[in-house]
């Protein structure tokens, strides 16, 4: 059974669909309880697989406690975890409320690590285990205007790489997915359109991204950056000093801001919650 967090978001749904297509049983969780039931029903009907669902606010430790209690009680044989749930808010740091800033950390990091640890303990001991963490292309740079988000994704990327080595001997693989913008909702689509050509070329469809990620995770790859152009951006990031990258991004962003009268994003504001 595979556990997917943030299953009702655009990328979460694509992962759920891809796994279901492969005939894998699923455990889905999301803050949106109605959407979760609807999604689970749809996948069950079409693919005839076993789908369990449990609604949970992952950013809340009590709610997480209920989730883990449910998992322990049911003793589901997990052999995979896809951490999709993540969040970002639009706007410069100074315009964000303290709740928003800590909220990003709470969901993107705290919840992620907590779920990973608990699921690894519950894993089916007789087979290998696959962890997929959804980081971001933003993980490769310090990004002005998305400072908290980008840094949280950097944390996830580094953490995934380290954990991968640590758990190699236990038959656990850890793969970090680092996508650029993804058209998951109307907001993110308008944000991508606002970026013009750059938006178009960096953007990849969630369906193929999910399929490509699963394929690579099964091979035990460490990092997956979807798209040739995005891979180039990543490689540039490896050679240019972070300070200069931060400056360049700010230049580009503020120009985009002038053009659109608002801040243009490389990523949708809310991936999943």
């Amino acid at each position: 059974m595979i556990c997917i967090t943030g299953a009702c978001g655009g990328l979460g749904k694509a992962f759920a669909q891809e796994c279901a297509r492969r005939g894998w049983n699923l455990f889905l969780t999301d803050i949106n309880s109605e959407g979760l039931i609807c999604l689970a029903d749809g996948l069950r009907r079409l693919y005839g697989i076993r789908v369990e669902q449990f609604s949970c606010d992952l950013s809340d430790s009590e709610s997480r406690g209920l989730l883990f209690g449910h998992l322990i009680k049911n003793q589901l044989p997990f052999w995979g975890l896809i951490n999709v749930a993540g969040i970002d808010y639009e706007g410069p740091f100074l315009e964000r409320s303290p709740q928003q800033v800590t909220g990003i950390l709470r969901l993107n990091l705290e919840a992620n690590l907590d779920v990973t640890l608990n699921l690894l303990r519950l894993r089916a001991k007789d087979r290998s285990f696959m962890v997929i963490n959804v980081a971001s292309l933003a993980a490769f740079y310090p990004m002005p205007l998305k400072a908290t988000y980008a840094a949280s994704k950097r944390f996830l990327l580094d953490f995934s790489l380290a954990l991968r080595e640590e758990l190699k001997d236990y038959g656990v693989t850890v793969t970090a997915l680092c996508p650029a913008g993804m058209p998951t909702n109307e907001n993110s689509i308008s944000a991508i359109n606002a970026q013009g050509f750059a938006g178009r070329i960096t953007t990849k469809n969630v369906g193929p991204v999910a399929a490509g990620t699963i394929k690579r995770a099964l091979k035990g790859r460490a990092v997956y950056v979807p798209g040739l152009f995005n891979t180039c951006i990543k490689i540039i990031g490896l050679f240019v000093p972070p300070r200069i990258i931060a400056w360049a991004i700010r230049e580009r962003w503020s120009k985009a801001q002038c053009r659109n009268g608002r801040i243009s994003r490389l990523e949708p504001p809310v991936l999943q919650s």
Partner: protein
Amino acid sequence: MDPSTFRRQKTAVITGFTSGIGLATAKELALCGVRIIGIGRSRARCMEAQKEILASVISAGRDVVGKESAGFEGPGKKIPRINAAAGDPAGITRTHFEATGTRTPAGIEAIVSKPSGIEPGGIETAEIDIAGIKNAGSKSAMAATKVYEPVVGGPLGDKAAAIEGAGVDFIVADLSSTREVARAAEEIRGILSWEGRESLDILVNNAGTFSSWYAGTPDGYELQFAVNHLAPFLLTNKLLDLLKKSEDGRIITVSSGSHYRTRIKWDDIFLSRRYNGLRAYKQSKLANVLFTAEVNRRIGSCGNLRAFALDPGLIRTQIGFKGTDSLARWIWKKRSDKGKLPETAARLALFLALDGKPREYPDIYWKDFKPKQPSKYACREEAAKRLWELSERMCGLKA
């Protein structure tokens, strides 16, 4: 209103009735005295469309019609005078005609006698093509045409009653979700039974979408497949018993010429592994034709109900501007500028919904008021059957 009136008046369900072809079709049908139940995604836009449809009915002088045709029943009788609305060549403004005519089972054979609203002699440029049968008026301002009886035995004596009779209701539902489609069907049943109606006469599966990007639906399926194919499939199935009870039931699904030169990708029907917006659109429109063919096969014995796939041709609508990337927008802008107005497609819908002629043909695919051969793939019986069974599974119609 007297319940027996409801029973005689035709009823139509139109999905996506708030804009484009759907709105134009709703207007045309309302002008023919058909009671409309629209389905739209946003309440605000539904209300706007409702207002617009009612306004067009009022401006076409339905109240006069009501008075004149009251008490008129049965084919073959002379109508003293009917007031028909016809479009000008561009199909935008409506002009009123006074006409006398005879009711036939297919509608009303009317002789236009006095156009009011355009100058005498100017009628030659006016087309009376409500039924889609174009008949330009002669110089003498006399034109034989076929006009539908605006109100079937209409009891409407005043304007308020005319509005009530025109009856435009709507249901707010997101057709990408199978749950919402099922709920919409339940609500339609509720409205119909509340009014004492036992049947549904016309279902126009018009709502369609295009998306440059892969988007998942609440059920975890692909957006275009869900909205363009699954929603019509499920809605039709949920309303099929009511449609079968109609004396002259019609299911009209708006397909497209883009269904040519494509196939159903069975091993990745959502195209999730290699998504292409246009590919997904073409596939969903092919699915419309396959569905129409299969529904006709399945209801075969029930002679009163027919399903048609409508090819509107290139129509100037907003479909290419929603959920698309800049390239698709640009292409659609260039392309749709050459397109016809939604009214053109609406007249074909009206023709398929009310005219007796389409029934006389075995063909299911119609374009420009003529039957047309759909693609070879669309004629494959085994593909239609397979798609039907797959759709049943997706919608949970069969365990």
